[in-house]
């Protein structure tokens, strides 16, 4: 078992374990904490896939920003923390069924599909290459700009919704 395989399994266990905690724990703050661990595991997977840039971005945005935001929201809606309410609704069995069905379906499809994998594994992935892919030949310039507008709109929208009834 080489270090790549080893790391993959360790990370997988970490990701799936934390993710199960996220959806099953009663204390929502603990959920958020495990969510952060999930994100870090995913960042590790990214690094395994030679996407160092995305791994760093994953940590920066998901761990550093989104988890903190979620913690903020949790603390602002604090009445629901700490009280050991039932955290699942009556749809839970159906949800398990859906999830399992989905997993089985994907497994069946994936096992029966031959992906056109390229044998070439020497990829010169660097930040510059991604930059060129997004902006270089103009291929993704417009989506990039649209994404920036989306972010701006989301920011304004979030502020407006969140301050809501002040005015």
């Amino acid at each position, binding site marked *: 078992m080489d270090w790549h395989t080893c790391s993959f399994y360790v990370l997988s266990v970490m990701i799936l374990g934390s993710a199960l905690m*996220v959806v099953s724990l009663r204390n929502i703050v603990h*959920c958020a904490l495990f969510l952060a661990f999930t994100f870090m595991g995913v960042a590790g997977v990214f690094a395994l896939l030679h996407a160092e840039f995305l791994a760093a971005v994953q940590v920066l945005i*998901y761990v550093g920003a989104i988890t903190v935001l979620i913690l*903020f929201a949790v603390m602002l809606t604090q009445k629901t923390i700490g009280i050991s309410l039932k955290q699942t609704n009556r749809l*839970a069995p159906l949800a398990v069924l859906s999830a399992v069905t989905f997993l089985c379906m994907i497994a069946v499809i994936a096992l029966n599909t031959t992906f056109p994998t390229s044998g070439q594994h020497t990829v010169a992935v660097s930040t510059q290459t991604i930059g060129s892919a997004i902006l270089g030949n103009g291929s*993704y310039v417009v989506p990039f700009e649209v994404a920036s507008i989306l972010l701006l709109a989301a920011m304004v929208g979030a502020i407006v919704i*969140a301050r809501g009834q002040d005015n």
Partner: protein
Amino acid sequence: MIAVHHYIFLSAALFAVGIYGVIARRNAVGVLMSIELMLNAVNINLLAFARYVTPTTLTGQVFAVFVITVAAAEVAVGLALVINVYRNMDHINVDDINLMKW
């Protein structure tokens, strides 16, 4: 040796967990977290295919960047909505947010 299938299984499992969370959680913030899990699953898939199927073009990574962007926007707006709902209804229990019921 790890193949693309391993990543697909990982991603599918993470996505399935996300589906469960989205449908079953009562806490709105929990639902949002589950959605984030699903988005991460998608990103794993994208990067795995980018790595194994098209190692030279990096299209998958570019898409992953966009997914992360959208996720950031989504979580900001989503949490703002949650806070607003909390202000108006004093709870964020998705089950009981059913004003749109017949």
